């Protein structure tokens, strides 16, 4: 495919700007570097991106069981609501009296997310899950500093955690203690007891964890951390299995982040924008980023929390994403939210039951919203790896599951069907998984070569990193 810089001819352009109707003024010092942006007609511009879009796999193109990413359907009404001029054309620094609707959206979304998480307050400034993790870690840091508790410098993270967890803790100035998981995939209580102490600032935990297992010792885990004087941080990446059924606040968590682009159906946009609101219990509320929306005597206003950690982003976070998530919550309501969770769990277990007995599924007997398979044995026997199976799926038009994560499972495929897929789709996908397993025995070479029907075949990633070409050069 041509790059946009390889299309068009000098002299082609769109007709966008009017003539200048006031006396012209120019800067004294101007750029001398050329600005070789595309020269292209509107027709060709549109064709270029249409062509690109035909080489993109979105949820609307087909099944997308990308574990831990929750690729559920993105409702159209959400997009419609976010594009209302009453939201999209609002300047972030308008007077409060002229943005009562925006502030109402933030306040209502906060109230509902508090109900779902069992927290007392929520900030919408963080733009993504990892940004929320950083914000949450900063809350814990500020809370401990405020108490004069400067010896607590360590954050405990299980080895099954997302890579963002340890990275976020370090950005907030903590040292990370990694602890092992036990055979059933849960936190090893002995390892946790050994790890906690007077230097413990807190624990970061995803529950259900990245193996798709709800940790049955959750109350004991949070108790151990609290008794040692630390705080518990809930990574909400997998809240979509339990939203409306159990609340992180009741599990003993003090701080949570949510991914509105996972649990609350907002689109992933090819890798953002997401939204990573952070909720906390009352004692941490005064440290939240600000200013935050609040209601007083029927009027909405912006207030700065008393001991705020400050800003983590300009303005009010990814506001339009919050509008979409609020639309989703209002649509589903008190019965629909748990219904979505239950069906996510049902679908995952059903798909797992179809693959059990063929694929090695190391954790069980049941899963939550996702399950992990290990292709280690298949790989040893046939030479076909998790990567090969994934690439084989591409030829059938299905997006593969997450590969090689969590890293504690060898040759892992993490499968998350979500609640918005039909039984028919799940059955078709299961059939494909089974066919590919067979193919691995009978003709592994085909899988090593896959994909063959995609716009490009397997790409040289090592070469890309060794000799980085990160921009188009016109020469």
């Amino acid at each position, binding site marked *: 495919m041509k790059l946009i810089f390889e299309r068009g001819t000098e002299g082609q352009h769109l007709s966008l700007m009017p003539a200048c109707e006031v006396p012209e003024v120019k800067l004294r010092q101007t750029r001398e570097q050329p600005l070789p*942006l595309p020269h292209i007609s509107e027709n060709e*511009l549109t064709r270029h991106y249409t062509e690109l879009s035909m080489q993109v*796999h979105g949820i609307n193109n087909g099944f997308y069981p990308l574990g831990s990413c929750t690729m559920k359907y993105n409702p159209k009404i959400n997009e419609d609501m976010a594009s209302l001029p009453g939201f999209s054309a609002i300047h972030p620094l308008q007077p409060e009296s002229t943005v009562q609707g925006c502030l109402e959206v933030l306040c209502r979304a906060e109230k509902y997310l508090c109900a779902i998480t069992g927290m007392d307050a929520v900030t919408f400034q963080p733009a993504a899950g990892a940004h929320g993790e950083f914000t949450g870690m900063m809350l814990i840091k500020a809370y401990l500093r405020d108490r004069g508790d400067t010896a607590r410098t360590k954050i405990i993270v299980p080895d099954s955690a997302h890579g963002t967890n340890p990275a976020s803790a370090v950005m907030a100035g903590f040292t990370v203690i990694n602890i092992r998981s036990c055979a059933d995939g849960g936190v090893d209580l002995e390892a946790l007891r050994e790890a906690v102490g007077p230097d413990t600032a807190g624990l970061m935990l995803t529950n259900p964890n990245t193996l798709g297992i709800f940790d049955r010792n959750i109350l004991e885990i949070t108790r151990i951390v609290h008794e040692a004087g630390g705080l518990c941080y809930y990574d909400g990446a997998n809240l979509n299995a339990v939203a409306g059924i159990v609340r992180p606040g009741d599990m003993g968590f003090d701080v949570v982040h949510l991914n509105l682009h996972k649990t609350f159906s907002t689109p992933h946009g090819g890798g*953002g924008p997401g939204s990573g609101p952070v909720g906390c219990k009352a004692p941490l509320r005064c440290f939240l980023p600000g200013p935050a929306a609040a209601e007083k005597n029927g009027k909405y206003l912006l207030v700065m929390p008393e001991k705020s950690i400050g800003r983590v982003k300009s303005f009010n976070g990814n506001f339009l994403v919050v509008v979409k998530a609020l639309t989703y919550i*209002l649509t589903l309501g008190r019965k629909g939210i748990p219904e979505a969770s239950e069906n996510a769990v*049902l679908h995952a277990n059903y798909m797992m039951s179809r693959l059990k007995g063929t694929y090695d599924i190391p954790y069980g007997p049941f899963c939550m919203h996702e399950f992990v398979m290990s292709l280690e044995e298949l790989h040893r026997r046939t030479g076909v790896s998790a990567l090969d199976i994934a690439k084989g799926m591409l030829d059938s038009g299905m997006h593969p599951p997450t590969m090689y994560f969590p890293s504690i499972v060898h040759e892992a495929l993490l499968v998350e069907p979500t609640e918005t897929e039909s039984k028919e789709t799940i059955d078709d996908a299961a059939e494909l998984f089974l066919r590919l397993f067979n193919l691995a025995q009978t003709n592994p070479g085909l899988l090593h070569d896959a994909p063959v029907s995609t716009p490009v075949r397997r790409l040289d990633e090592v070469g890309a990193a060794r000799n*980085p070409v990160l*921009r188009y050069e016109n020469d």
Partner: protein
Amino acid sequence: MGTYVPTTTAERKQMLDAIGVKSIGELYAGVPEGLHIGNNLDLPEGLSELEVRAAVTAAADKNKVFRTILRGAGAYNHFIPAAVRSITSREEFVTAYTPYQAEINQGILQSIFEFQTMICMLTGMDTANASVYDGASAAAESVTMCRERKRVKAYISACANPQVIQTVKTYCFGSDTELILVPEKDGKTDAVALASMLGEDAACFYLQQPNYYGQMEDASEIGEIVHAAGAKFVMGVNPIACAVMKTPFECGADIAVGEGQPLGLNLAYGGPYLGFMACVKPMMRRLPGRIVGQTADVCGARGYVLTLTAREQHIRREKASSNICSNQAHCAFTAGVYMAAMGEAGLKEAAGLCISKAHYLAGQMEKELGWKLKYGGEFFHEFVAECPCPDEVLQALEGNGILGGLPVEGGILWCVTEVVPKAELDRTIDIIREVVLP
């Protein structure tokens, strides 16, 4: 109640049978008994699409949409071509995730590669990443790029956007980096003070161009001061201004970052926007976040992949250069389409219109209202005008559908973009005249 679950009752039963359980509840056996909230979820009843539309629209209607916006201060009301809105709403781009499977996501990867290229063209820098959350977090991440073992202090101009300063401060509190504010003098960074402040422990200095007050800084001169102290020079730039002003590269910047919202994104009450980050080649591997690189497939065909991942959290965990995972991909895509639609000529025309119209309004305020500009330096599309009664002026404008400038110390910070017609600027002057000149 609304639902997006397609599974019928009969199918549910089939699935439960296949799993070998009687109810979905059995699948939650791992959840401790007392933790189930049962019917106690404190949310309203779900709604039909018709009702939801009415409810959310009612909230939108409580906001005031201004016909004319003369306020910037970090978020700018620029013209967005129809082609940009149409192209970027294609649902393949909207509903995909990070292109982990490169073979079926060349469209996203190539669009990011094109975005990276265009950001390099605009800033003059060598390499750009696939975006971060916004301009403020881009500034904060740039500090991390510059920190070295013995260079641990970060400096930032007091003339930078206050929200950027606050965000950098938060990140610095996280990493225990000392952040020092370099004072303002006559609406610009005090270069003499800067020279005296930077020592051997200085990691970097952040300069905003044009600065918060709209003033054009003497960036090249400041770059020389920063480099003389052995520190890195970071410039936070307005991307529209970049089309005409001396580029960060020409000013000697090691890193150029900025708020990408002016490149085709709605004001949207503050987000989603995007932060762009570009740097000189030697700092390439210090960039945070996703980066797309060109490579070839097994048959030698050109293709694109996420690359240099050894910097990233999913590989390096606690040793990663940043924790960023999701960025603002769709916003970066939008910015790329915008730059392609505008082209060199369109972008330079837009920048030129901004400058000319802002100077026209400033001139009319001096001539017609007798107001003084607070600072005498060269400016782009924002300026501070002294004003005897800002509240009254802004209220009168608001009543006429005009969002006036932002009240700041000593006056009002005005912004004029290409979308405001001359007649509207004249009307603005007329409305203000009625308030201030009895």
